[in-house]
């Protein structure tokens, strides 16, 4: 059977093959994972629907495949390798892409063996439209034209399509963040970086989560006019409050961190300063103010940074927030995070404090316009009523897109946040 890339989440049209867990000839059991596919932000393992043997694989690691394209051919157990009875049925649903056979290398083994070693040259399907120059570029870059998403008229593959498939340029987020060039076309020429190969180097393909992070971060840095505003806050009251709830947390089996309190304090501040819970629509030249408060939590995982968000955080209690943060971070770490949890964030909190540091200057999580860095709470001398006392002091670093929010507003927002964090009982009136 031909197995097509299934619909793996609402609004997901394509996925990048990050890792094949099987190879041609491998036996596979139903419901056992075959391949890791990375969509917008999450990596999903796709299981085999049947028990059988892998007959052919139609996409290489690093390739982006559209939903509905044939990924892999599986010879089902107990059926002949290419079931003749089933063939018309499969075609009736959706004909396999014409390009597929030309990608397999299992054809005519005798001829392959005789003709010279390299088989990097693909036979062009007659239906792939591309000029000789584009074809040469594809060959030089090692891009399979049959797999390139065509943007030209009548499905013609352009040079830019090939460069994009190769990753030397990206439609919205060029890999190289060359400060002076904003045109994607211009960037294609500036991408070759000469790295002196002294000593041993290892080249690791930029793929999966790492690639998405690279794209998202450079895009944000290139588009948003970042500035970071830093303030300190005495967290003594919240430290006390959290301590007082320790017993109940244990009873509930919830890990109560500082984050739920910070979110609680953040919400009324955001409500007062809606421009920080917003997006900038470049094309329409409009600022979009969000009615939802979906607070993203930057989460450190083995694969890299992932940012799930808590939906409608304004309507959740400290306990609900704590529970949800725990669940989200667990599913991020195990790679089982749902796409919906990664989409629709309106404001992000990033917490470097658990590791160390005084403060950081976070990069805004595009298309949001502000991100709050919360840092380590440390005992520091503070002046209270003209006396030096020991306080639980934390630095807050707020990065904001100056295109949308001015410095004064960011400062006013920060004041409001500090107002609640320093005296959480004020939240009762918020």
């Amino acid at each position, binding site marked *: 059977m031909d197995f097509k890339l299934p619909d793996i989440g609402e609004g997901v049209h394509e996925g990048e093959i990050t890792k094949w867990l099987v190879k041609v000839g491998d036996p596979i059991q139903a419901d056992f994972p075959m391949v890791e596919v990375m969509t917008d932000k999450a990596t999903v393992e796709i299981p085999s629907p049947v028990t059988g043997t892998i007959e052919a694989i139609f996409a290489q690691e690093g390739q982006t495949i559209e939903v509905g394209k044939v990924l892999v051919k599986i010879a089902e157990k107990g059926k002949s390798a290419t079931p003749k009875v089933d063939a018309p049925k499969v075609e009736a649903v959706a004909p396999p892409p014409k390009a597929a056979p030309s990608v397999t290398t299992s054809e005519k083994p005798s001829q392959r063996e005789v*003709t*010279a070693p*390299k088989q990097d*040259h693909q036979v062009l399907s*007659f*239906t792939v*439209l591309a*000029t*000789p120059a584009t074809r040469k570029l594809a060959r030089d870059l090692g891009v399979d034209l049959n797999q390139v998403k065509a943007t030209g008229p*009548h499905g013609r593959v352009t040079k830019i399509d090939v460069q994009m498939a190769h990753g030397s340029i990206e439609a919205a987020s060029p890999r190289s963040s060359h400060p002076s060039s904003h045109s994607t076309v211009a960037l294609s020429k500036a991408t070759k970086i000469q790295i002196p190969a002294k000593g041993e180097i290892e080249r690791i393909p930029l793929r999966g989560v790492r690639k998405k992070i690279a794209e998202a971060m450079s895009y944000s840095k290139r588009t948003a006019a970042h500035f970071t505003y830093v303030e300190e806050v005495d967290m003594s009251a919240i430290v006390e409050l959290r301590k007082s709830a320790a017993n109940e947390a244990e009873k509930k089996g919830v890990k109560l961190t500082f984050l739920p309190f910070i979110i609680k304090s953040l919400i009324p501040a955001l409500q007062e300063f809606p421009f920080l819970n917003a997006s900038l629509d470049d094309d329409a030249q409009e600022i979009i103010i969000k009615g939802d408060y979906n607070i993203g939590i930057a989460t450190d995982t083995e694969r890299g940074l992932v940012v799930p968000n808590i939906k409608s955080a304004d309507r959740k209690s400290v306990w609900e927030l704590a529970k949800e943060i725990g669940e989200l971070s667990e599913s991020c770490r195990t790679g089982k995070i749902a796409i919906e949890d990664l989409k629709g964030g309106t404001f992000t909190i990033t917490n470097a404090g658990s590791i160390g540091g005084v403060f950081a200057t976070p990069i805004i999580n595009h298309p949001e316009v502000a991100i709050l860095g919360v840092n380590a709470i440390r005992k520091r001398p503070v002046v209270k009523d003209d006396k030096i006392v020991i306080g639980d002091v934390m630095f807050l670093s707020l990065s904001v897109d100056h295109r949308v929010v001015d410095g004064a507003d960011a400062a006013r927002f920060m004041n409001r946040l500090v107002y609640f964090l320093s005296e959480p009982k004020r939240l009762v009136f918020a």
Partner: protein
Amino acid sequence: MKSYDAVVIGAGPGGYVCAIRLAQLGKKTAIIEKEKIGGVCLNVGCIPSKALIFGATQFHRAQHDFEEIGIGFKSLDCDLSKLQNWKDGVVKKLTGGVTQLLKMNQVDVLTGTASFKDGRTIEVKGKSNETVTAASFVIATGSRVVEIPTLPFNHKNILDSTETLELKTLPKKLIVVGGGFIGVEIGMAYAKLGSEVTIVEAMAEILPGTDRELVSVVEKKMRKMGITVLTQAKAMGSRQLNQGSEVELEIEMGGKKEMKTANRILVSVGRRPNSDQIGLEKLGMKLDPKGNVIVDSQGKTSVSGIFAIGDITGPPQLAHRASMDGLIVAAVIGGENAHKDYKVVPWAIFSDPEIATVGLTEKEAQAKGIKFKIGKFPFAASGRALSTNETEGMVKVLIDESNESILGVHMVGPEVSNLIAEAALAIEMGACVEDIIRTIHTHPTLPEAFPEAIESAFGKSIHIFKPPAKPK
């Protein structure tokens, strides 16, 4: 022992092009040729046959078409030996030019037969006697005519194409055994010069493999010219008559034997690769069952450092294909990641009218399961064709319904050997219907037929009337 970066064996349209390009890429290059620079194409193939066909066509037109357009003359004759001299001059000019180009590019020309001693050395015997080594070799030794056992060449009146192209006196009766493109071209040329021509083809039709609709236009012209075409007819043997002034051919047709006499017989039943005389067996080079050298998309043979291009690698046996192979292999030797990735190889038959074709035929497109539309435009509706009094033929276009790209273009008619270039470019560029019909074509010229043929597939050709669909 001389040592080169690259040595090319064979100076035909594959070899000399490859050698010049290698030199341009800064490679120290030699080319080995056992006969004449230019190979079959320039010396005894494409060029001389086209010159002879041109002469014959001028003569034929003067005889048959001039009166209609008001041109008269007192007497008209064709001095075949003068025509041959002119033709030889054309060949000399071209081959001289190529020799000069090789020299100016500092390619060493070694004259003699080449034979591999091992994978790194080659021995040249003949005018040049030397052994040379090279980092890369390119085999471009081409192909030669096939002999049929029942009708061996006697080089007097049973001739190959080379000899037939050099006749100084016109054969009254000429039999052409083999109705492929060489037989058809030379047969029609001699018919124009005044020979009584019979074409004997073993298959069910002449020009096998060519779109029947195109061939039928040429067949019609053949009948008009008095050429006899015998199909499913096999040449069984021959007998010399009147001390060799005539030859009798025994033909088997539908189980019956028939005798036909002629002054000359041209045997043109195909070509075989020249892979058997250069010591390839010593290298263990892999050949296919027909003796063609097996190469990959970079022209690499199974022996490392040895490449092969053109006819010796199998069909299509066409000079322009060999030249492109040569350019690609030179680039590969020059260190480039070049591959033979052309989608199509156009080709032309210089029959009357000419046939030219590129891309998929209807049968091939059907076999591939591609849904396609067909558009046709007859030259009878072309202003240019009418005004040059050559209105036979048409342009046929196959359009892929899925993306409106051009799958194949098949033409028969005046100058179609020139017209096909645009179609080949269109297919290589992935051009679609809109690209071609929105390109202005000069008026009045024959290429206007291309967009018109495309438009006709959609019922929109301006110069073909199509009644509007009746309202229901």
